[in-house]
């Protein structure tokens, strides 16, 4: 047994030993930190792909090749072949054309209309499929490598056991396995995406994905399959931890709401992910053995694939957003220093969302399945809106008559409420059959899910990162610059995505590399959106530098900078190797701000309602 009184980040004597203490660690915090670093890297990688996507859409024209005289000699549509002026060297194989950046040097031919004389030059062909790969890269990385593990596997891993007063998760070795599976699957995915690329979109719809010759679809699908195991193991671990390792005296309704949210998330992870696994495995079989189950050309059924896929991937949406709900519950309670309004309603709505999430998947298929099934799924879809609405009302009610600290996490909680409410409220038009028929697979959907996923989960994640940053790194970050970064992210986000709702109502379909030039609204809106994406980049870079600065030059953080009452604030900063010096004793609930004061809190800084006169 190692020294229990050392911080978990403390070195182990020599550099080699310290490195090994990370590589072979069973400590949930170290595993969480490794996850955190990985998902942040993935976030920036996926973000770069998104910037590329936005850049391509800045204007509708194809990339043009201009010769020295400024004349357009060719454009990328020539890649298609129709009216092409490209000459591809003899013997260019589909494999060569199937790499991420094809780098096919072609001869461009310009014919002088008067003399018929041909002049030749050389250019490198790019085309739509670069764009297609970029949005697939963005989608797969953001979904499988960033947003699904972001909150549960990173922040959840670090804080779930501490908030329960446990020394570790139930199965520390499995936790490490889960991390290495993630690492392996992630590297596999990056390999597939860079070396050859994938251009099926992250949804891998058959028969396109099962028949396309382009890129490394098989490898990418296998990578997603592997990543699924990581997710399942994390979920299993959390469920058992919550059931078995709560500190004595902590009942189910004494758990912080973050734990409730993670618990609900874990249920979905365990119950839905295996179906994704088998679906992807069948796509691999489809590609290798031509089993024909999902391929209509072989007698199979393409809609069946969509059912299989969305049975996982819709609940996966709640894997992404539920932990975000949990973080917001924590931030609002702590920074408003207020007992959360309707604790049980929030807790139960998490579980309700988890259960209902299994009922609604086919609203992704309103244009592909039978109209009768559409009606059923439309009705079921509205069900999930109710618990979600309840949560928003509860959070805003918690702010009533509270004592709100204007901190970066609280700022992010407000941003979350703003953006997620928009994301939530644009759900009903998509659940309403008559309207969805028009909006399905347009930019309205793109905007909607970015408002939920990015305006919801990512803002909550960044907010949570600021909230817990002092605790798990032991360093203070620069509040001013974090606030500046937050505002830029918020503005950039809304600039990028709000306009896309109107692109969608105007009928701009998703996943288009270009768009008709004669609809002026398209171009203007795309331009605004692209400018917004640059602002987003700036905002996130500011956050990155704030965090790096904090790590390198930040002051040592206090034990309980915000005055939280949950158990993670009672341990050292950063936490000890086994979290607590001695097993914590539950003396108050997680949100008893009107009756309890944090351990060692200064009464002047932490007045109780009982010892101050009425505020107004």
């Amino acid at each position, binding site marked *: 047994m190692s020294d229990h009184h050392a911080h978990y980040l403390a070195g182990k004597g020599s550099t080699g030993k310290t490195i090994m203490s990370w590589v072979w660690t069973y400590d949930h915090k170290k595993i969480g930190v490794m996850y955190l670093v990985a998902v942040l890297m993935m976030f920036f990688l996926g973000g770069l792909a998104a910037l590329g996507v936005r850049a391509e859409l800045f204007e509708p024209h194809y990339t043009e090749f201009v010769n020295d005289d400024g004349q357009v000699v060719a454009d990328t549509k020539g890649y298609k072949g129709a009216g092409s002026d490209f000459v591809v060297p003899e013997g260019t194989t589909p494999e060569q054309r199937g790499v991420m950046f094809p780098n096919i040097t072609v001869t461009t031919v310009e014919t002088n209309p008067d003399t018929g004389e041909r002049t030749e030059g050389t250019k490198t062909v790019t085309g739509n499929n670069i764009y297609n790969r970029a949005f697939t890269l963005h989608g797969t990385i953001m979904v499988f490598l960033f947003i699904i593990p972001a909150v549960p596997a990173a922040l959840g891993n670090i804080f779930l*056991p501490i908030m329960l007063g446990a020394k570790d998760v139930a199965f520390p070795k499995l936790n490490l396995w889960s991390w290495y599976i993630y690492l392996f699957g992630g590297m596999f995915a990056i390999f597939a995406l860079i070396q050859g690329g994938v251009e099926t979109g992250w949804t891998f719809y058959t028969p396109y994905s099962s028949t396309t010759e382009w890129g490394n679809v098989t490898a990418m699908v296998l990578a997603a399959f592997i990543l699924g195991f990581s997710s399942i193991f994390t979920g299993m671990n959390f469920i058992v931890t919550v059931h078995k390792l709560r500190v004595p005296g902590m009942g189910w309704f004494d758990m912080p709401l973050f734990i409730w949210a993670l618990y609900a998330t874990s249920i979905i992870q365990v119950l839905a992910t*295996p179906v994704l696994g088998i679906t992807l495995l*069948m796509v691999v079989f489809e590609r290798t*053995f031509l089993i*024909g*189950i999902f391929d209509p050309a*072989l007698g199979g059924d393409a809609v069946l694939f969509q059912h299989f896929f969305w049975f996982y991937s819709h609940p996966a949406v709640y894997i992404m957003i539920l932990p975000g709900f949990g973080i917001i519950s924590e931030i609002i309670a702590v920074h408003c220093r207020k007992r959360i309004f309707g604790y049980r309603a929030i807790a139960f709505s998490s579980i309700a969302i988890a259960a209902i999430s299994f009922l609604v998947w086919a609203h992704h298929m309103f244009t592909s399945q039978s109209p009768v099934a559409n009606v059923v799924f439309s009705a079921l879809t509205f069900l999930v809106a109710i618990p979600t609405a309840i949560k928003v009302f509860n959070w805003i009610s918690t702010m009533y008559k509270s004592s709100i600290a204007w901190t970066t996490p609280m700022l992010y909680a407000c941003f979350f409420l703003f953006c997620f409410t928009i994301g939530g409220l644009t759900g009903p038009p998509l659940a309403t059959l008559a309207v969805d028929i028009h909006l399905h697979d347009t930019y309205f959907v793109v905007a909607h899910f970015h408002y939920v996923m990015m305006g919801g989960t990512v803002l909550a994640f960044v907010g949570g990162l600021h909230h817990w940053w002092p605790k798990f790194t032991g360093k203070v970050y620069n509040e001013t610059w974090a606030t500046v970064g937050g505002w830029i992210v918020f503005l950039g986000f809304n600039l990028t995505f709000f306009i896309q709702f109107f692109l969608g109502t105007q009928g701009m379909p998703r996943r288009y590399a270009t768009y008709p030039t004669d609809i002026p609204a398209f171009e203007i809106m795309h331009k605004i959106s692209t400018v917004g994406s640059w602002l987003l980049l700036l905002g996130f870079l500011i956050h990155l530098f704030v965090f790096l600065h904090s790590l390198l030059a930040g002051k040592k953080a206090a034990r309980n900078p915000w005055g939280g009452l949950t158990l993670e604030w009672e341990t050292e900063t950063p936490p000890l190797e086994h979290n607590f010096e001695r097993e914590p004793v539950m003396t108050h609930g997680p949100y008893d701000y009107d009756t309890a004061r944090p351990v060692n809190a200064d009464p002047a800084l932490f007045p109780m309602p009982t010892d101050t006169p009425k505020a107004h």
Partner: protein
Amino acid sequence: MSDQQHNQAGFDAGPLPPAGTRPHETYVHGHHWRDRWEEADGAKLGMWLFVCTELLLFAGFFCAYAAFRLMYPDNWHEASRYYLDWKIGFINTGVLLFSSWTIVMAIRSLQLDKKFAAFIYLGITNACAICFLFLKITFEYIPKWQLGKLPGKYFNYPNYGPADPAVIDSTTLPEPAGPLVDAGHAITNGATDMVASAMNSGVMDVLPIAAKAGEEAHHVPMPHDHIFMSVYWISTATHGLHVFIGVVLITWLMFRVMGEHYGPRRYTMVENVGLYWHVVDLIWIFLFPLLYLV
């Protein structure tokens, strides 16, 4: 034991049992668990969650099966009848059920501290698992492979031919060309074409088909037989893979049992492998009638 004691001692392994006892008696539970029974309970709960994931994984196969059964009911009934031999499946069901029972008995033996009996029971379980795989591969997979009863595109429609030579002449059915291995997509799937042509020309409706291979006697090939075989192959192969993993796990358990790592106070791992093994059995309980019988 009060909480106070826990706060002081609970963060370490607790008092160690006397030295010199057998490994399972000196077993120390994980430091983060209250005691080893909690740990065992937790491990079992974790195993049940894993069992759930296994069930949902196979639910994918069952869903595919049910979907196509719904779409092509007669086709699937016929295909099940004529491509699969229920006798092998039946024997294998018995073998798996028996192995399920023996692994239960292995746990019982450990609980009663009968190391050798547990070892024997595990050995029998393992033998059954290997027997299952042997029967499956020797009497199902290999013959099917040879006859071209392969999944999807590689499915070779049986060597059908009408009894009356006059008819076969007039319909000029192409000769079966062996497993279709032409590259590319199956839009020009010759085998399906042949069946389509045969059905279309009315041969199928009128004549009993004399099969050259005895297994398919009197079978009328149908256009979606290859999908049935796809589901058969992928579901039984995935199940077989689980059986194989079971063999590895049980072999490992046998070594551990010989090393006295398990006993009345510690048998969670055996119990969990047992759960896994029962799930393998459970899946087969459904696969067998669905694929082989109905």
